[in-house]
């Protein structure tokens, strides 16, 4: 799967068809422009993450691409069908799992599944088979006869995805699929998403968790205030922001002073006996640091490598919070 190719760059072989493409999507509510010209090109079979803070326009984007609401401007194709021109064809190709579980709480999990099977016009037998299989796969067989309203958050989300899969969609929109889930359920959801992708499904994911985008997505677009402010692979985005360093911490002031003189280019923090060295954390950079410490015969009590993570990128790009200054960052 291509993971690091910009839309404009050359690649070998034929381009996979775009599962989702959009040009200049706009949406306003009253005076407020929620989406201010969004361009997207998502190859089939990939995972795309739309990352942004609350209110950035993530859910609005999903609502437009899943035909729930109409864009005010711009155009988009989903699964090769025009959103405005043939929404029913788009609907036949997609599955949507919203931020708030789209399950019918008044009926049981099994009844929810059979409802989906009926709406996808499966035969009764086929419907029962598909529904039982998916309930089993998402570990819901035991709870199948209970009303969905009694499910935990993680179970509801699993039922939600299971319902989405009844129609075997080729493109799945997941709007903040792990928001509000505990860590175990979150990891279970990640595993589900990876399995979907392994099955050839295109996943369009929104999230406010950087780690999630980093874990799952082939490409990430950072959405802020209705605009895409950066797009690329996780690595490409991380390269946009400097801030990688190695940090050495000492308990013995003498060792600290010896190390500081051996590593002349280090930034000193005398109060906490900590040295920081700018660097990308590569093996070579680390070896050079260790060699210099070795020859000065000092040993650090703690060595940590800090690479810029998506948090740094996120804060730098969205400008919503103070970008931590490497020189003033306190010891974690």
């Amino acid at each position, binding site marked *: 799967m291509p993971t690091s190719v910009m839309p404009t760059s050359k690649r070998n072989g034929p381009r996979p068809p775009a599962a989702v493409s959009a040009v200049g999507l706009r949406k306003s509510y009253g005076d407020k422009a929620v989406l201010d010209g969004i361009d997207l090109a998502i190859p089939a079979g990939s995972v795309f993450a739309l990352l942004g803070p609350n209110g950035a326009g993530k859910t609005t984007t999903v609502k437009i691409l899943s035909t729930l609401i109409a864009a005010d401007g711009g155009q988009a194709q989903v699964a090769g069908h025009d959103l405005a021109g043939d929404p029913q064809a788009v609907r036949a190709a997609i599955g*949507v799992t919203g931020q708030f579980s*789209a399950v019918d709480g008044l009926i049981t999990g099994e009844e929810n599944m059979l409802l989906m099977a009926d709406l996808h016009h499966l035969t009764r037998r086929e419907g029962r088979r598909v529904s039982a299989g998916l309930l089993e796969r998402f570990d819901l067989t035991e709870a199948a006869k209970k009303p969905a309203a009694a499910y935990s958050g993680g179970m509801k989300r699993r039922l939600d995805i299971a319902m989405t899969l009844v129609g075997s969609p080729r493109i799945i929109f997941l709007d903040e699929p792990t928001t509000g889930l505990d860590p175990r359920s979150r990891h279970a959801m990640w595993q589900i998403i990876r399995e979907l992708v392994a099955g050839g499904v295109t996943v369009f994911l929104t999230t406010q968790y950087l780690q999630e985008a980093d874990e799952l997505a082939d490409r990430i677009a950072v959405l802020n205030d209705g605009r895409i402010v950066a797009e690329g692979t996780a690595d490409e985005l991380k390269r946009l922001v400097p801030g990688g360093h190695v940090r050495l911490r000492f308990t013995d002031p003498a060792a600290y002073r010896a190390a500081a003189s051996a590593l002349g280019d280090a930034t000193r923090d005398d109060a906490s006996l900590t040295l920081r060295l700018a660097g990308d954390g590569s093996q070579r950079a680390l070896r050079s640091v260790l060699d210099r410490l070795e020859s000065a015969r000092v040993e650090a009590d703690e060595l940590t490598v800090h690479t810029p993570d998506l948090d740094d990128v996120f804060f730098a790009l969205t400008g919503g919070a103070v970008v931590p200054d490497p020189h003033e960052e306190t010891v974690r």
Partner: protein
Amino acid sequence: MNSLPLAARDASTMLRRNLLHARRYPSLTLNLLFTPVMLLLLFVYIFGDVMSAGIGGGAGRSEYLAYLVPGILMLTIGGTTIGSAVSVSMDMNEGVIARFRTMAIHRGSVLIGHVVGSVLQCVLSVVVVGAVAVAIGFRSVDATVLDWVLAVGLLTLVSLALTWIAVGMGLSSPNAEAASNNAMPLMVLPLLSSAFVPVDAMPGWFRPIAEYQPFTPAIETLRGLLLGTETGHNAWLAVVWCLALAVLGYVWSRSLFEREPK
């Protein structure tokens, strides 16, 4: 691919979903039955002797029961459709409706499922309240088979008309409480009709209110069918009222449903 069978299939799936809701949570339907049954017993056993004077001709309690039942049956329909407005409004706040909107199903099937389910509930409620009426002595002596068929047809038509209006009220209400309040006229209008006393017995200023509303002609027509009283032009008026309300409610509900969700 023919779209009509698909539409019918989707609508019947949605109907099954609503019937499942009603069967699983019968309290809403049962609560709504309480009011017409209570009014029936109250007006017959407590106010009966006084009220019978209002219908003239030296009538007694049993004559008043006969007079009252058609109105109570119409009021039952009005009350049941309040429940429909509430359940539509509750349903629209469910995430699953958003899911339906992103699926390649017949657009109107969600509403049609609600409407057919509500009409069935209305008919069932009418049967229950009618059974109570029969149990306390109501008899329809003169009605022919055709009269009965027409009576059932009229009750169904009224149910359909009021249900479409109720669905519109449910769709336009932000939550269940608001839907219940907004749909109140469906219960209040029969109280202001000829259900309890003839329009002629009302004060002059009030008569137009009782006369120019759908319940009075519908009740008078039902009375004519079940008791053989004079219906006059009420039958046509009732049908026109019902068709007009059904079409209005349908157009209103469709446009509300097609409106962009928030």
